[in-house]
């Protein structure tokens, strides 16, 4: 999409929410891998 330089307040709010959502989404994708990686370095009782 072409960049709109004149951003409205609602546009800025949307961008912020979108960015937060994307960070959380990435974290949810990576978390199982990070968890397995971390337990593989520690004394995993499971």
């Amino acid at each position, binding site marked *: *999409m*072409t*960049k*709109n330089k004149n951003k*409205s307040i*609602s*546009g800025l709010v*949307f*961008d912020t929410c*979108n*960015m937060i*959502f*994307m960070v959380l*989404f*990435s974290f*949810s*994708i*990576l*978390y*199982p*891998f990070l*968890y*397995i990686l971390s*337990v593989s370095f520690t004394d*995993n*009782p*499971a």
Partner: protein
Amino acid sequence: MIFNISTKKDSLDQKLFKGGPLKVENNIVIAKGRLHSYVKYKYLMLMLLPALVYYIVFHYVPIYGLLIAFKDFKFIEGIWASPWVGFEHFKDLFALGSFWEVLRNTIIISIYKLIWGFPAPIILSLLLNEIYNVHFKKVIQTISYLPHFLSWVILGGIFLQVLSPSTGPINMILRYFKLEPVFFMANPRWFRSILVTTGIWKSVGWGSVIYIASLAAINPELYEACTIDGANRFQKALHVSIPSLIPVISIMLIFAVGGVINDDFDQVFNMYNEAVYKVADVLSTYIYRVGLESMQFERATAVGLFKNVIAFTLISVANSITKKINEYGIW
């Protein structure tokens, strides 16, 4: 391709040469049609050859094995020499209560996946399309593709750990809030939700690729025209981005509906256990257990054929409906 006009001109059926008109030169008819384009694009055709061979060897030749479903199959006699039994195996199969339970599970899990899993990549691609920071967008896309490249064998093990009632982080959170831990992987109430969620988690990023490509192909002038008309970002997405995705969505929906009966064997097989058989046993796992573990090849083939007939019917119906609604179809 060249034909002598004196003998074949009248009998030539122009429908044979859909690719282009017939050209007459010195009493000779030259068909500039499909065959002509095959010769013209011979190197592309050569590149197509391995895929064609793959489909013939691994998808068309094994169709012969479907005969087992109609025979009293004996290893020593082979497929052709084994005696015919007609629809006997199908009758036995439909009389089994377990078959209908498995079919019900397959359809329920697939419909859940269709309802929740089909819109997920579309929403993700639309949200990614709204990100202006190219580096941030690329990082998110790369992360979202990651699970696609890992097999369910690995992911099944990972989720067994993550959802473990004793050491899993989800249950640790539940315990922190003084809630009872849940053995998600062995709880029939939770298992289908786990299948759907992990399925979306694995495929959402990779599934969004096709939609991102379609969004990238939209003419920027359309957005500029919208800006001049005073449209905001939501209106641009609603009137430009989403309508541009409709052809791709239609085709993907046809495939998704056709695949309702085709469950994800790898996922279910690597995640299920006897405690959840009642809600998780699907057609492919049933075929595996009946066909390979119990050596009942006739019954397993009958289930497979039944599944394929249903899938073909579903895909045909979905294609006709989609074509009637928005003129886009796969044939």
